[in-house]
């Protein structure tokens, strides 16, 4: 019995020790509780805030692909694509739209986490301010994307801490814009200058200012129509111009060749989404720029595969003068047969490929079929000049606006709007038309067109006119390209709230027409 007794004692002793076994700690991941302690932690968390920008759901593909076209610059080329956002025949469960929504809110949540924790870190105060400013700006930028695509959206500015309260109401668009402007304005004072950064993949002071100009213009246009924001837009554009940080690259096409070759042009480009490598590493930070749309090619290496998913419109071609160097860069003059360039017949004007980014300039080999290193510009200096001109014209008419427009035209070799050229613009409305065309000439295929058309209130009419023109003037075998314009209706001014969100968030309401 004694033996049993001592055995029992031993077992009881064993038990009490064993309970500690239940306190396992994760060996494979860190918990946020123990994070945000050092500058490096914050830097990595901030990288997480940037990360959605480079995914296929945003600028890696869809936001400069199916979610930005078709429009009067480029039309989806495949006759077989009958459904989806590229032909304005999408449902509320469209995966690309859902994924963009997800990517925006993922970025916002990461920014919220960082902003709530950055004060814990033991780090240099200047760097803390810079990182904080970048996070604040990026959160505002994600909200800007949401505002452009969905209008009223839930405004969430603190981290999610509770898995139970998930029903978030939409805030009015005006309130969303006010928050965006407030956050960006705050960020402007904290982030670094582009010259101190030396590259344009990070948010710089002038990038924030330039983006404030763009946001102000958006708010001044449809649907908020807060026209007092034209002044803000002009001022923000001015602050970029006057910063002395930026200038136009004298050679238009070099801007885009630089994108393909990982060369930073911090004068011309205020902010680029960075892509790198050929996807044959573990990170796959590549983009479909030049891959999805571009000059179609079957050759994997020279020039590199391109699906040729868009045709530049005949309208865009006709917007350019013969002397405008931008035309033959933005719209290809040749197509590929294998690795050979075959010039277009001069009458082939309806199914030319956009040539803005060309894979033949990529330096990294081997090239991969579905992804390359080409960066995507979010904000260029020429845009700043055009915004400055547009805002000025809206406020005071063309007199002081023309000079900014002419800077852009001069580089391109286009005729200047001057009295000397007998080409002066005196009428505000006339200037309005010119600036709308100029933005297409300068900024085509940079995923700005749909939002420009929408804020000008001419999206539906432009698309209908386009469809009409195609149906009447295009060669018969290409008239199917009218499909997207025919499909467009008022409801396409906004994306539908994704069905997934509608099902899970009881406070959510649907956009009109969906």
């Amino acid at each position: 019995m004694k033996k049993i007794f001592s055995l029992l004692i031993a077992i009881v002793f064993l038990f009490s020790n064993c309970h500690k076994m239940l306190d396992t700690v994760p060996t494979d991941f860190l918990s946020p509780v123990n994070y945000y302690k050092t500058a490096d932690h914050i830097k990595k968390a901030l990288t997480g805030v940037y990360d959605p920008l480079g995914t296929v759901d945003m600028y890696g593909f869809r936001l400069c692909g199916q979610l930005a076209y078709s429009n009067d610059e480029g039309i989806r080329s495949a006759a077989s694509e009958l459904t989806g956002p590229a032909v304005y025949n999408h449902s509320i469960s469209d995966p690309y739209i859902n994924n963009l929504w997800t990517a925006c809110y993922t970025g916002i949540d990461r920014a919220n986490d960082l902003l709530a924790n950055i004060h814990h870190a033991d780090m240099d105060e200047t760097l803390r301010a810079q990182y904080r400013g970048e996070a604040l700006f990026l959160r505002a930028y994600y909200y800007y994307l949401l505002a452009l695509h969905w209008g009223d959206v839930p405004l969430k500015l603190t981290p999610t801490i509770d898995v139970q309260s998930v029903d978030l109401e939409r805030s009015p668009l005006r309130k969303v814009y006010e928050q965006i402007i407030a956050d960006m304005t705050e960020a402007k004072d904290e982030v670094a200058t582009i010259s101190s950064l030396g590259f344009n993949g990070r948010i710089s002071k002038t990038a924030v200012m330039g983006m404030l100009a763009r946001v102000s213009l958006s708010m001044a246009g449809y649907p908020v129509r807060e026209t007092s924001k034209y002044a803000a837009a002009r001022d923000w554009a001015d602050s970029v111009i006057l910063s002395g940080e930026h200038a136009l690259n004298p050679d238009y096409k070099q801007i885009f060749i630089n994108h393909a070759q990982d060369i930073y042009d911090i004068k011309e480009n205020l902010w680029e989404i960075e892509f790198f490598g050929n996807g044959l590493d573990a990170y796959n930070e590549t983009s479909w720029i030049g891959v999805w749309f571009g000059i179609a090619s079957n050759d994997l290496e020279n020039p590199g595969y391109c699906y040729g998913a868009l045709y530049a419109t005949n309208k865009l071609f006709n917007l350019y003068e013969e002397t405008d160097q931008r035309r033959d860069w933005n719209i290809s003059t040749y197509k590929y047969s294998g690795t050979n360039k075959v010039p277009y017949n001069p009458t082939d004007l309806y199914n030319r490929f956009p040539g803005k980014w060309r894979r033949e300039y990529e330096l990294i080999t081997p090239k991969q079929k579905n992804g390359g290193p080409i960066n995507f510009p979010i904000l260029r200096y020429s845009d700043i000049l055009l915004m400055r001109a547009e805002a000025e014209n809206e406020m005071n008419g063309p007199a002081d606006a023309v000079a900014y427009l002419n800077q852009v035209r001069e580089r391109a070799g286009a005729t200047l709007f001057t009295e000397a050229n007998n080409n002066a613009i005196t009428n505000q409305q006339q200037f309005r038309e010119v600036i709308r065309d100029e933005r297409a000439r300068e900024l085509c295929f940079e995923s700005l067109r749909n939002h420009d058309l929408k804020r000008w209130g001419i999206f539906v009419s432009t698309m209908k006119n386009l469809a009409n023109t195609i149906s009447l003037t295009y060669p018969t075998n290409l008239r199917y390209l009218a499909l997207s314009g025919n499909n467009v209706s008022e409801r396409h001014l906004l994306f539908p709230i994704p069905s997934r969100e509608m099902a899970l968030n009881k406070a959510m309401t649907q956009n009109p027409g969906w």
Partner: protein
Amino acid sequence: MLTLFLMLSATGYGQTITLSEKNSSLLKVLQSVKKQSGYSFIYQDQLMQKSKPVDIVLKKVKLEDALKAIFLQQPALTYEIINSKLISIKEKRYAPQRPSADADTGTISVRGKVIDSLGNPIEGVSIQVTGTSTYALSDNAGNFIIKVPAPSAKLLFTHVSYAKKELTARVLAANANVVMQFPQTTLEDMIVIGYGQVKRSDVTGSVAKVDMDDVEKAPVRSFEEALAGRAAGVQVTSPDGQPGAASDIIIRGANSLTQDNSPLYVIDGFPIENPDNNALNPAEIESIDILKDASATAIYGARGANGVIIITTKKGKAGKAVVTLNGYAGVQANIKRMKLLSGYEFIKLQTELNPAVANKFYFTDGKTLDSYKDQQGIDWQDRLFRTAPMQNYFASISGGTTKSKYFLSGSIFNQDGIVINTGFKRYQGRAVLDQQVGDKLKTGVNINFTNATKFGTVVSDYRNDLSSLSLLYSVWAYRPISGTGNDEELANELYDDAIDMASDYRSNPIITAQNIYNKNITATIIANAYGEYAITPRLKLRITGGLNRANSRSEIFNNSNTPYGNPRSTLGKGGPNGTIINTQIDNLVNENTLTYQTKWGQSHTLNALAGYTIQVRKVNSSGASALLVPNESLGISGLDEGVPSTIRSTTSESVLLSYLARVNYSFKSKYMLTATFRADGSSRFAPGNKWSYFPSGAFAWRLSNEPFMKNITVITDAKLRIGYGITGNNRVTDFAYLSVLSFPNINSYAFNNSLEKAAIKSSLDNYNLKWENTGQFDVGIDLSFFNNRVGFVADFYHKNTYDLLLNADMPVTTGLTKAFKNIGRVRNSGFEFSLNTINVQSKNFSWRSGFNISFNASKVLELTQNQESILTAVTWENNFKNIPLYMAKLGQPVALLYGYVWEGVYQYEDFIQQPNGTYLLKDEVATNGNTRTAIKPGDIKYRDLNGDRIMDINDQTAIGRPFPIHTGGFTNNITWKNFDLNIFLQWSYGNDVFNANRLLFEGNINGRLNQNQFASYADRWSPENPNSKNFRPNGQGPAAYSSRVVEDGSYLRVKTVSIGYNLPATLIKKARIHTMRCYISAQNLYTITGYSGTDPEVSTRNSALTPAFDYSAYPRAFTIIGGINLTL
């Protein structure tokens, strides 16, 4: 000499006798017969000294038969019916056989006769002296003679139709007759329950025992393949027919919505979640017991809610070495292929889809549609499917002494799949040793090693929602005709130039299947050891320790002839690439139990158990990938020459500590009570929620032991069971309650042309996360009729699962897409019935049947946040990625198919013809989700439920029930002379299947060109054929799920048929073979179903929320094999 007369009045008595006596005196038995029959017995009272105690159970048998049966047990006595009132008892004229010393050999000859319980002689019974090679056979009068070394030697009687019986020679000598019983008397079976065994008659919970004799008749890889329909309440869903694919086993309905619902397995006493069932050779399984209700499973507490499957492997028995050799070989063939459009119909469809493109491909050089009139083109299915061999060899040797026992075995199983370059192989060995040390200590080990290899294309595999990557997509979609006049061109290239590679990832299915290298090699070691020490005769301490280590290596090599390694392919990663991943899962268990067993008085028995267990589960996984492998001919070995890519390394650990206790109390075997309690502490939950407590109680009442039941003579045994208990489910990931900050490579950003890694929050913490609990009530009755010839079990259960663990979808406005939560309640309730009968039992012919049927209904009772329903999408096709197909709605089953109600196609009368000849949909006719102006006659049409004439989410509703109303199985075992026949039928009734294949192949939902269709699409709407319900080409409308492809998945399947022949012992004795059975078995012979797909038993995205989905399922094979079982 005194003669005692027992005389009573003979009036008012029935014609039949019912007896139930155990170890009773002959006198007592005769008094009972007298009472029932009115006959009196006359005998000399000293004759009673020569009587033997009587063990007898008879129900309503004739007097003559009763007497025969009683006196069979009286070696010295016999009887004579003198008249209608009197029976005389006399001494037998001859003396019973006595063991007689054989002068020559020093052995003793024993004679005897083998009879059944009605006294009929049994021929062909094998009588073996245990532990020797001596054996004999009974002749046609049942007589035998055998030599034994000593009166204490044991004799083993075996016959295919009867239960085995073992006797010592001494007993036999005194008895002369050996009575063999029908095997159906199962009340004495031992049922393995957690941490112990009880007699079936004493079980208080709901426990099913699987008849392994039947299961072994099925030629299958793993026991789970043969488990469907074998036990009431156990639903086995295998996703499809892929060799080596694991089945999902659900007991009494799914409790959990997103978490694993598979039962806990206890293999040789070793509890384990999700073991690799391929590691067990079905031939080595001695028994499978399935614990279904809470009273039975509560001893497993936190892991008992999904039921428990207890598997016990074979062990050695004392005696001479028994060698068993089993082998079979056979073939498998594809049962059903989809009929596809003929070459002509295919071309015709292309002209309708897009005439311009069709002209370009098919009508060059003056060819017209008529040129293709008789062309069939390439039959890709014919080239992909094959008749494939399957073989299995098994050998074992077992034996030992009363103190040391051993069992050693090994097996080889080799199955090629019916799809080229797929298959499964297994090599396996086992050693079991048991040793008695002194009087008090027993120890043993049981070690199993298995090496199992699965290889080839996973046919239903899916990646990134890309439906066109699944193998059968390519098979069905690939063009049968190239248009160039040489169709073989298509067969020689991986890609078809006519295909838009941007969105359509189909590749030459034959080249793809041949080149895919996807191998999974799992080495499993299961090693258990135990020591059992009898502290006192009533108190036993048992300590066990065990290890289950599964080491698996996954090797994937994508060469340039596969879609994942071809530089031109969208997913080709620039060229040949590969990945190796090694994963090791260790489960370590230590269990310590004390068992106390006692009896007091005549009536009370008590069995008490207390224990403490520790279980640790460790997972570690590592691996690497390489891209641009330069020498692809080296295959996976050449990976090191490629460009290094992802490195994987993960580890995790969880611990479960438990205290358990159980008391079984029985009063006169009439009232039985079980009370169980378990406390579980799991590391998977946050501090404060780690521990949970699981009580249960059950009560059983043996009605048949009550006096009022004595007169109901048809009922041999009746027992009522009732029980309630709470069990849990802890199937969440190891640290589900914590926020996770991770650093995935893919979430990087390239700043300044250099890649920087990001820290991202990939899950949200929830410190309130706790166990999912299930309260289960069960009431059941076990009945046995006609002297156990009929056994019937019925159960009703009612399970309420609360604090449901859900990996819930989150609105992404919260920043995350999923989070673990305890939400809501689900109920499962149902009935189960099983019936086992001996329909015929005679000398040469027997027929036994087993039938079971189960009904289960689930219902969502509560969801948090006032949610009405949870909608779930299925991953299979990009355009359907965010369209929910399943709905779990309050008051409804946990899954319903969800979508539009299909109404055929729009007809001309739905339109107004415009002046330009086009048709415009009338205002009062609802759209199909497309814009009104885009809809044309022949387009798909849905029902407008809310009357707003626009098809949207508000018109979606329940369109099918994926769960069956009832499922079941019906087994028949027939023996005739030396032949045996086993026929097993299995069915499922009332369940719908979502046939997603038809979305792509009966109407081409993505509008892809040059994609073939099922033959059923030859009939489609056209102005000339307006009555067809299939929409016109391009008339599919926007992506949507509808009732169009919801089909009744009910089926009745002849699952297994096995015919065997036992060679007569006289014939094989010379070859020193003990028994030999030759047989032919077939699996999946015939299926009656209305389902149009290849197989209604399918669920390629199987989970509680997404059952019965069919897309690119590996067809289930018909298997036929021939084999031999030998024992030496």
